[in-house]
């Protein structure tokens, strides 16, 4: 059954020192020189087809002047226009408005969801067992609701005609005018309050459960030692807890940024599939230009801009994951 090749077996670390030049492949996969490549083939074909080639044509499109008409009805009209597409988008004041709005909105979301997530995770360490179970159960259900349904539910909660949030505000303040307060009339309120509420509500389960799991990894001896040395609760948190959970903290902050920056679904459904321009973050802008208005080349430029804006965080996140992966191997 053993075929002599110069391939080596990849073994797990625990089974002793890895044999460096073992002239046999062992176990189930003993036969055939090209087995690894043929096993990889389907995955490679699929990913080239639906990812690499589209990415290539994304760049290709960005140098053309393609829209739905030039693409479907009259392909002869599409031609390469070099960087004209880029100068057009970058010279558009709406683009910069959208980018700025996305940055503000993302900053708000990341900071609020991380802080709230951390506070609730710390709270979970303080409460009785049954309260903890209750909170975690609720969080699991929140997690299970699709983002699209989140948007719908919040549109209903905040509707100006019979919406429960308006009614609650009336019950608390006793002011009748709250009953017909339109949360979406002012886009600043609509986006930075209601939009943020949906997204943070949906993001909290992941963050809280993750941070809570990270907090349980903090050795009790360390916090107790800090207390004995006279540190107060905040100092213990700042100088003992934070450094220990730092890796997860950084990764989840990076992930929150990556998700929140390209957020689309929640805003789209919150505004009933046609968000007004003042609600456009970069994800929505991309959809409106590319899918609704069918300006394929313009949206390709926007896509590339979006990826470039996220690049620093993306690279950071990938490097962190590789570090963890390398330790695991």
């Amino acid at each position, binding site marked *: 059954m053993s075929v002599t090749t110069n*391939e080596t077996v*990849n073994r*797990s670390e625990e089974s002793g020192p890895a044999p460096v030049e073992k002239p046999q*492949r062992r*176990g*189930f996969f003993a036969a055939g020189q090209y*087995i*690894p*490549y043929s*096993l*990889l083939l389907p995955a490679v074909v699929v*990913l080239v*087809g*639906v990812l690499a080639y*589209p*990415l290539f044509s994304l760049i290709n*499109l960005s140098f053309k002047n393609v829209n739905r008409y030039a693409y479907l009805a009259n392909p002869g009209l599409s031609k390469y226009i070099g960087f004209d597409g880029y100068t057009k988008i970058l010279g558009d004041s709406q683009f910069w408005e959208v980018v700025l709005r996305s940055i503000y909105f993302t900053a708000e979301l990341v900071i609020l969801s991380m802080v709230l997530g951390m506070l609730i995770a710390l*709270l979970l360490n*303080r409460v009785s067992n049954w*309260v903890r179970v*209750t*909170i975690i159960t*609720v969080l699991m259900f*929140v*997690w*299970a*609701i*699709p*983002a*699209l*349904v*989140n948007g719908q539910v919040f549109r*209903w909660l905040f509707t100006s005609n019979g*919406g429960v949030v308006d009614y609650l505000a009336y019950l608390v303040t006793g002011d009748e005018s709250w009953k017909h307060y339109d949360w979406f009339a002012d886009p600043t309120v609509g986006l930075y309050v209601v939009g943020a509420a949906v997204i943070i509500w*949906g993001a*909290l389960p*992941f963050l809280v*459960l*993750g941070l*809570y*799991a990270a907090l349980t990894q903090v050795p*009790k001896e360390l916090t107790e030692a800090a207390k004995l040395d006279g540190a107060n*609760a905040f100092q213990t948190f700042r100088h003992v807890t934070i450094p220990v959970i730092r890796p997860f903290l950084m990764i989840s902050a990076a992930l929150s940024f990556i*998700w929140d920056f390209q957020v689309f679904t929640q805003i789209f*459904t919150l505004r*009933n*599939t*046609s968000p007004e321009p003042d609600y456009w973050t970069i994800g929505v802008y991309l*959809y409106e230009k*590319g*899918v609704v208005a069918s300006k*394929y080349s313009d*949206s*390709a430029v926007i*896509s*590339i801009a*979006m990826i470039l804006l996220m690049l620093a965080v993306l690279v950071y996140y*990938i490097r962190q994951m590789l570090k*963890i992966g390398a330790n*695991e191997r």
Partner: protein
Amino acid sequence: MTTSTQQAAPVVTPSAPKKVKKARETGRSPVMTWFWNIVGLGIAVVMAFPIYWMIITTFKTNKDLISQDPTFWPSSFSFESYKTIFDDSLFLPSLWNTLYLTLGSVVLGLVVGFLAAVAVARFKFRGRNFFIVTMLVVQMVPLLAIIIPLFVVMNGAGMTGTIFGVVLAYLVFTVPYVIWTLRSFIVNIPAELDEAAMVDGCTQWGAFFRVILPLTLPGLITTGVYSWIQAWNEFIVANTLMSTSGQKTSMIWLTFYSTTPTRGADYGAQMAGGLLVSLPVIILFVFFQKKVSAGLTAGAVKG
């Protein structure tokens, strides 16, 4: 990956803190615990309220629904909203579409990903590390950024408007995740195990089905559940690719249900639709709670 923290956590908790509870840590009086309990319950109520409101809305009568002062408990229960949904001629067909789509992308994603995961976990070959890193990078490409070129490519291949085209598109996010996750499962199966099975008389396929497959089963379930949730909840890609044929998935149906003039204000039906569409995912969460949270944390998915 982050899985390790998730999996390690339950191991730590059961034995140790029980004793600590009895001794009670310094600075934690029962009064404070009660204070924090109340705060915690308050947070639970706030977090649960949107779900409660969604569910309660589906049972409300029309009179309750259009009332300016919403009631926190329906004055009488009515199943009218559910009837409206099931009477909608597009609801069931779109649900079937979603089901085919989801099953297709889960099965195809697992098969393709599993094969590749075996290759990277069990073989050393040129380009292996490059492939692993690529899988991680690929997971981070924003799907939204490639929908237009994806549409153009699929259209060129004549696959827009078909369910199969969308299944293929979903492999973008399932395959890299499956490879990345299953790799660590397979790496931990010692080669001696399947060797031993073959010494004992198993054929190669026998060793595969009796040793390797059962040992990777937990990983397959985790990744399968992850792929299911992703495919079921996906909206933008399906909407863009299917737009040419008028076929709908549940998520597309739900999104545009509220835009029709007759249904725009019927929040009872909208909430019932939303609840019914989310139900398969909610059930998965309830059944595979641990696996879901570990898998989603590892795959970094927000609900």
